[in-house]
């Protein structure tokens, strides 16, 4: 007797409903026959016995009803048992798969690690993008309905400029003149201020915001309240402060009695009214310690800051009313702006205002971090695809090895659907394990990317959260199906008889084709990724080697914060300014005398910090030619400035200590200025009227190299320098030091020297000039690092894939090799045969990949620096690298193939 479970598993009996009825009928028939026979033996006539048997079977309702009820019960039973068996079979398949995977731990580890890297890469990139783009800043409600405002102005003869800063007037115009927004708010960029007094002073980050800022974001305070409209009214608002949660904990130990208390910021008192919720970092995720009302700002850019169009220092955001599009809002804003335009600033007449998403940068472009992250998510999808192709390939190879087992199962009647499920289950199981390990990879990877590549963003929360787990689960499921499906389909379609006869040797050439196709795809995708990596690395190198005209990594900038002087009248302010200048000069002298200092200087205006233009007339020109880079820009510097920042002189002389206030006015111009204004002639001795048309003019005494002003990518501009002390109308002095050795190591002794010049100073800010440049380098570093990691990953996975395909192919062809060797082929020939197959596969992939990279290049062009997306050297280097890997991956299988013993191989039939 065969057990029903087995019978069902092998489908020897179908369990369809009519079958069930038949069987019930059989049982009833037998019962009636036996009962009748029993009754006959008891003395009844055959007819009576029959009738009595029927009566006893179902006295009440009659046989038909009883039969109906029995058939129903039997069907119900069959359905239940069938379900139970299906579950049992699934469990059995699951255990079978687990056993199968555990039987080959090396294979399992390879597959799981491959998938974990692929899934983990995707999960971490998703986590980053989710935070940067999808989810919006913490505590901000519906951030996708908040728009950032940009102003585009056309300056005749120069071009279009788009920027985020506008004046308070524009904010007021938008607020009063549009219906598209439910709220409008303005804010300043972060500003560093001194908290407290003297040596205990601390540097904090402050933002000035309009009272509407918090209501617009729909944030609720954890304690106290935010600003009221009446407290933020031009021209003079109340000195209040909202404290960030982090600063509340750090500075005040989370004391709730802090509400209503005064704090000293920049020497002025502000009353704390409320505390922002934990991890709230504004609309832009920038670290902030205090928010203060815009109208309480000291000093304001001008006295008439609320009405003038000349001061532009605010950025504006607006929350769109339901149903309003960004375009409609932009149109309304532009209209409101032009209605209110008063003609005071000529280029604002035609200004257009546009509303763009929050994650756009100061120039109205999608922030480079975001576009690079978006690209990297794409790249990590490619990595996952490569991993999938590889794992599918490995599973396929395994299925080939198990061909006979699968054929036996099919012959025993396992059903192709069940087989399909078995193989799919294997894929899903492996992917599941990969996904689980992938979460760990994501945890580590997310932390790495956050800390090293996107340090400017204020992150909150763990890198792995529910949304990311959900994403990972979905990616894992998809991956499992992707890797399991192909082998499953191939296996269930195989020809039974030939498979049983041939075992694993022939293994079907069609399947070999699929596997080679997968390998080619892997090689092609790796090529694409590695070209991307190469281009980014080339860009990063170009960025690093970029001649800025200065040596920012060698130079420290020192900025003390001054105690509020209380100076009111112009005379008082004048004397305070003189005092501060004396302090700077004393500090400069002390620092110059310091043994660890190569040179030091004072400057007004500094690359990557601040730049100035003043009225300039040059003899021989009615109006100066305008360059697209803007300018001409002026800097006032002391004699050692050029030596300190490392700007080289090309002709004439640099300033000496004799060039000072009151001495003969002199000037130094940049190469671009010299070339533009005196083409083909020597500018030395020519005359510049700086700030005034009145003689004496400043005589040009030298020419120095161009320097970058504030961006790595910018057009050349005219620049000139005048001696410190001869400037008029510009201010904001920075102390520059070029120490010997590591610059930041000298920071503390420099602070001490400056404090010795004036013990009343607040916090003394010291940083290298490079720190101002780093954020601009970061996207390329992010791109180069991530593309590099992903590219290396892809290369590794592709190499393993190629190796596995080649060794399986070689193993399958061992019979053929045996014949060849028996017929006199030498080891060398065999080796060449296998190598050629491997290298051929890789070459096809490289060619396809090169084509894809060539075509797709224009999409990354704008992310690159100083290199075309079709950099022949990068393509060549990557292609040869891949080919070397291909040769290496084929070498071992090739050598193994030569060791085939012809006799053994032929007898293995």
């Amino acid at each position: 007797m065969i057990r029903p479970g087995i019978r069902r598993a092998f489908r020897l009996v179908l369990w369809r409903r009519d079958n069930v009825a038949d069987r019930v009928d059989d049982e009833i028939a037998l019962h009636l026959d036996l009962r009748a026979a029993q009754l006959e033996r008891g003395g009844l006539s055959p007819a009576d016995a029959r009738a009595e048997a029927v009566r006893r079977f179902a006295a009440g309702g009659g046989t038909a009803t009883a039969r109906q009820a029995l058939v129903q019960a039997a069907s119900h039973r069959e359905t239940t048992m069938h379900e139970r068996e299906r579950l049992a079979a699934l469990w059995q398949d699951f255990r079978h798969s687990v056993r199968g995977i555990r039987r080959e731990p090396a294979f399992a580890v390879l597959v799981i690690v491959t998938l974990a890297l692929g899934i983990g890469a995707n999960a971490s990139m998703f986590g980053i993008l989710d935070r940067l783009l999808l989810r919006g800043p913490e505590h901000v409600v519906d951030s996708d309905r908040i728009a950032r405002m940009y102003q585009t102005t056309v300056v005749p003869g120069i071009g279009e400029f788009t920027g985020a800063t506008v004046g308070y007037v524009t904010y007021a115009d938008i607020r009063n003149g549009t219906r598209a927004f439910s709220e409008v708010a303005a804010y300043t960029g972060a500003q560093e201020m001194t908290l407290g007094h003297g040596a205990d002073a601390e540097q904090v980050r402050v933002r000035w915001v309009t009272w509407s800022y918090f209501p617009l974001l729909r944030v609720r305070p954890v304690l106290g309240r935010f600003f009221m409209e009446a407290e933020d009214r031009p021209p003079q608002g109340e000195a209040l402060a909202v404290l960030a949660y982090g600063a509340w904990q750090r500075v005040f130990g989370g004391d709730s009695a802090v509400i209503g208390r005064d704090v000293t910021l920049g020497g002025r008192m502000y009353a704390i009214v409320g505390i922002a919720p934990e991890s709230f970092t504004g609309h832009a995720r920038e670290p902030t310690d205090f928010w203060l009302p815009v109208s309480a700002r000291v000093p304001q850019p001008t006295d008439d800051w609320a009405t003038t169009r000349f001061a532009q220092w605010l950025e504006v955001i607006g929350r769109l009313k339901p149903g309003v599009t960004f375009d409609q809002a932009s149109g309304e804003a532009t209209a409101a702006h032009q209605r209110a335009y008063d003609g005071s600033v000529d280029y604002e007449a035609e200004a257009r205002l546009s509303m763009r998403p929050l994650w756009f940068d100061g120039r109205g472009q999608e922030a480079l971090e975001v576009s690079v992250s978006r690209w990297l998510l794409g790249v990590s999808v490619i990595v996952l695809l490569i991993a999938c192709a590889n794992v599918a390939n490995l599973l396929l190879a395994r299925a080939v090895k198990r061909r006979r087992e699968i054929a036996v199962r099919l012959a025993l009647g396992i059903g192709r659907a069940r087989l399909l499920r078995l193989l799919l289950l294997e894929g899903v199981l492996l992917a599941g394990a990969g996904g689980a390990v992938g979460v760990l990879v994501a945890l580590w990877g997310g932390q790495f990317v956050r800390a090293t590549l996107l340090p400017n963003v204020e992150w909150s929360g763990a890198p792995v959260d529910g949304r990311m787990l959900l994403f990972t689960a979905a990616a894992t499921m998809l991956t499992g199906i992707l890797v399991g499906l192909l082998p499953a389909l191939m296996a269930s379609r195989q020809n039974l008889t030939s498979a049983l006869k041939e075992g694993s040797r022939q293994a079907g050439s069609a399947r070999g084709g699929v596997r080679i196709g997968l390998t080619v795809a892997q090689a092609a995708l790796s090529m694409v990724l590695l070209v991307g990596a190469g281009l980014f690395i080339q860009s990063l190198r170009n960025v690093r080697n970029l001649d800025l005209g200065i040596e920012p990594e060698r130079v420290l900038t020192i900025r003390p914060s001054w105690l509020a002087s209380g100076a009111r009248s112009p005379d008082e302010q004048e004397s305070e300014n003189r005092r501060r200048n004396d302090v700077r000069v004393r500090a400069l002298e002390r620092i110059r005398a310091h043994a660890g200092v190569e040179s030091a200087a004072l400057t007004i205006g500094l690359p990557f910090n601040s730049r100035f233009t003043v009225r300039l007339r040059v003899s021989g020109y009615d109006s100066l030619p305008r360059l697209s880079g803007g300018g001409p820009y002026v800097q006032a510097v002391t004699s050692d400035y050029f030596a300190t920042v490392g700007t080289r002189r090309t002709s004439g002389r640099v300033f000496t200590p004799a060039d000072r206030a009151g001495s003969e006015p002199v000037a130094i111009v940049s190469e671009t200025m010299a070339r533009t204004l005196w083409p083909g002639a020597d500018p030395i001795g020519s005359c510049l009227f700086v700030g005034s048309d009145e003689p004496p003019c400043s005589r040009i005494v030298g020419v120095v190299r161009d320097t970058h002003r504030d961006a790595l990518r910018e057009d050349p501009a005219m620049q000139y320098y005048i001696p410190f002390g001869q400037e008029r109308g510009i201010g904001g002095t920075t102390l520059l030091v070029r120490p010997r050795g590591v610059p930041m190591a000298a920071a503390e002794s420099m602070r001490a020297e400056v404090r010795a010049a004036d013990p009343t100073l607040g916090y003394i800010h010291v940083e290298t000039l490079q720190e101002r440049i780093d954020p601009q380098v970061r996207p390329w570093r992010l791109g180069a690092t991530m593309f590099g990691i992903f590219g290396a990953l892809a290369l590794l996975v592709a190499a393993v894939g190629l190796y596995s395909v080649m060794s399986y192919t070689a193993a399958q062809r061992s019979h053929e090799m045996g014949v060849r060797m028996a017929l006199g082929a030498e080891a060398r020939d065999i080796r060449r045969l296998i190598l050629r197959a491997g290298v051929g596969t890789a070459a096809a992939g490289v060619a396809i990949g090169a084509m894809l990279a060539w075509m797709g290049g224009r999409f990354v062009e704008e992310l690159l620096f100083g290199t075309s997306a079709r950099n022949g050297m990068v393509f060549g280097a990557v292609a040869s690298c891949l080919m070397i890997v291909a040769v290496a991956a084929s070498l071992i299988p090739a050598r193994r193939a030569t060791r085939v013993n012809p006799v053994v191989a032929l007898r293995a039939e």
Partner: protein
Amino acid sequence: MPASCPLPLVKGTLDALVLKALSWAPMHGFEITAWLEERSSGGLGVEDSALYQALYRLEERELVRAEWGITGNNRRARYYHLTANGRTHLRAETTRWVQYAELVTEVLTAKRQRA
């Protein structure tokens, strides 16, 4: 007890009786009927079809399992076996029944007591 007036079967008891029958040997439906009639001297008032209902129910609960076999007369019949679960269940049901019966007996046969 005369066969003409069998007692109606207490609900759920049939299952236990069928299990008891199968605890001796695998049987087909009629064999079980015959066994029960023999043991009870025909005292159990059960329609034959009810027995099959009970069997299907027991099979669904995995207390018995069925296999097709051949009878002595060379006919195809569905033979029912007791499963391990069935055996356990039978033991539990027996205990329960005996306790129940004792209780009922005790109550029904109680003598009148004077206070």
